[in-house]
């Protein structure tokens, strides 16, 4: 029974979109791109995690967070700490004054591993931490803010301030965190060298896999009653409250979920790119994650992924060829996405491409009466 439902869904409009994305990421890119470029696509996809989180908490629930870099960074640093400890085995660090600890700690005259680094010797702990640490911080922030009915602009500014605080803290405490350079020179994951081309290709597929996991979780949440309540809350918070819902707990939930998505993205970034630094934690990267979500059409999970790919590809292109133009382009993009096309790519798609879809073979239209409403709901 379930298998039939799944196949029916695959043939629906929404299912086709997912299949196309999967084809693009799993088949087209790996075949068409050399290892170096594929790795870059993998890097772009890690930002998509944060952007998808924003679709849930901003697009659907109206909670603008200008601090997703916080959670991206926390997830990334957790993974980096594990990898760094592995790379700093006593054999590898024999020439240091204190072997067995990361090089930057040695440079800063530390003689022992700080207590909060110790648990990161364990991979299972690290995996849990990648989800739990961002979620925990998100929980604290969310409870403090939403229980007091702080929202909107004030909330956004405070998340921005917290991103700034964390950045300064990380940079300032270089003995503990690697400072402004971050944690670099990562080599192996449980003995497996992550710097080789084969490893990076494999990690790319892992990233795509994790992306689909988050995509499915996000879609499930949006489709559930909880998703409808979030939408209701965005537009009529009072009415939801007076229908018996504790609005704060829903906001806390979605904010923590978005934080976990971003944390996973950060960890995948560390694995694929080989380092993590405070330049991914602060105000600038956080607001760039927002633009990725906005370009995708803030209500569409798939849009967020495409938005992340396109904007980052543009950034790479411009930075390589016309560096001066990139900031202008990005600035114009911010303004355009707000003034000219607030529904982003998803909106453009709905307006210009969807009408053309009916020209495709009838095969795609079979059994779609129910699915017709889904893209509209998803892209709302």
């Amino acid at each position, binding site marked *: 029974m379930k298998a039939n439902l799944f196949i029916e869904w695959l043939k629906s409009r929404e299912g086709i979109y997912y299949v196309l994305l999967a084809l693009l990421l799993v088949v087209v890119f790996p075949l068409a791109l050399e290892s170096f470029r594929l790795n870059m696509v993998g890097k772009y996809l890690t930002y998509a995690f944060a952007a998808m989180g924003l679709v849930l908490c901003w697009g659907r629930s109206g909670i603008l967070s200008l601090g997703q870099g916080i959670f991206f960074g926390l997830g990334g640093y957790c993974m980096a700490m594990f990898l760094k400890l592995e790379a700093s085995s006593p054999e590898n660090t024999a020439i240091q004054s204190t072997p067995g600890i990361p090089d930057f700690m040695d440079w800063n005259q530390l003689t022992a591993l700080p207590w909060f680094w110790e648990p990161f010797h364990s991979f299972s702990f690290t995996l849990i931490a990648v989800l739990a640490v961002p979620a925990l911080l998100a929980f604290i922030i969310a409870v*403090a803010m939403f229980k007091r009915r702080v929202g909107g602009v004030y909330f956004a500014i405070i998340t921005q301030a917290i991103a700034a605080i964390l950045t300064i803290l990380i940079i300032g405490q270089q003995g503990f965190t690697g400072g402004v350079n971050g944690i670099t020179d990562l080599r192996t994951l449980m003995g497996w060298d992550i710097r080789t081309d084969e490893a990076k290709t494999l990690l790319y597929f892992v990233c795509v896999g994790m992306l689909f996991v988050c995509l499915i979780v996000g879609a499930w949440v949006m489709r559930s009653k909880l998703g409808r309540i979030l939408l209701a809350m965005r537009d009529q918070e009072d009415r939801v409250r007076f229908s018996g819902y504790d609005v704060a707990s829903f906001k806390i939930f979605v904010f923590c979920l978005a934080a976990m998505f971003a944390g996973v993205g950060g960890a995948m970034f560390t694995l694929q790119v080989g380092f993590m630094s405070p330049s991914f934690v602060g105000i600038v990267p956080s607001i760039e994650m927002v633009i990725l979500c906005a370009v995708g059409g803030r209500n569409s999970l798939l849009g967020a992924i495409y938005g992340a790919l396109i904007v980052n590809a543009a950034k790479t292109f411009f930075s390589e060829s016309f560096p001066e133009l990139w900031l202008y382009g990005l600035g114009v993009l911010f303004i355009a996405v707000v003034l000219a096309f607030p529904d982003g790519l998803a909106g453009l798609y709905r307006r210009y491409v969807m009408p053309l879809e009916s020209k495709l073979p009838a095969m795609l239209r079979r059994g779609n009466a129910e699915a017709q409403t889904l893209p509209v709901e998803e892209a709302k």
Partner: protein
Amino acid sequence: MFADYTMTELTSIFAMQGFAGLSLFSIFVLMALGLAIIFGQMGVINMAHGEFMILGAYTTYLTAQVFESVMPGLYGGYFFVAMILAFVVTFALGALVEWLMIRHLYHRPLDTLLATWGLSLILQQTYRSVFGAREVGVSLPDWMMGSIAVTDLVEIPINGLFVMVLSLLIAFAVYLLMFRSGWGRQVRAVVQNRPMAEAVGIDSGRVDRVTFALGCGIAGVAGSAFTMIGSTGPTSGQLYIVDTFLVVVFGGAQSLLGTIASAFTISQAQSTMEFFLSGSMAKVLTLLFVVGILMLRPQGLFALKVRR
């Protein structure tokens, strides 16, 4: 930490840091006043506020250059000309931006935030292209150099004193404008009840435009003052934007007096701590302090009681 110093020394340290804090206070006040008008009175978030300030700073720099090459004898007075020019230029740009962009976004504060961030990126890149990526400095005129010795241990730099007096004068002028002039009455009318204000013949579009431009103009003057105590680069505006927003929100965005009190508290806290801790820890602690208080009291520490 404190035990290393004698009582007199401690007092002098606090006094000196207090005074250094006052410089910071003046900058915060000028930036925050402009932002408080735009955000507190109009509900508009201007993430490009720092860039308007830098525009004022660059205008001042250019004025100084012109004076130096064309009329070096009058260099002593260049600052006053520069200040007025800075105001005019940033006011004009503010009016243009409001007309092009802001007025379409009044009911969408989060969108304004994003759009003005985009503007700030464009402005930053423009400054980089026009003035170069390196920071430029302005040489102080003779009468502003040096310090006044108040006691044996406490010396107060003249430029800092000048900037502080300037800020207070401007704050006072803004107060007069907002609360004692016909214009201020119109602004407040539009903010509180737009349809009614329009019904009595107030051109709310124009009021909006001038109010926004005024906020930007004050930022420009802040930028002028900024050149007295630091050098200016394309990204200097980013240094203060988060602090400025926190100052405004901490003070209770609706209240200009609250903004000033908040600017004082935050600048003093930061500069005093800077002496005893490293610069970055002082900053972190100050920000944590402000965010912590905002989490407990979201309407701001100095907000007046609001009728529900």
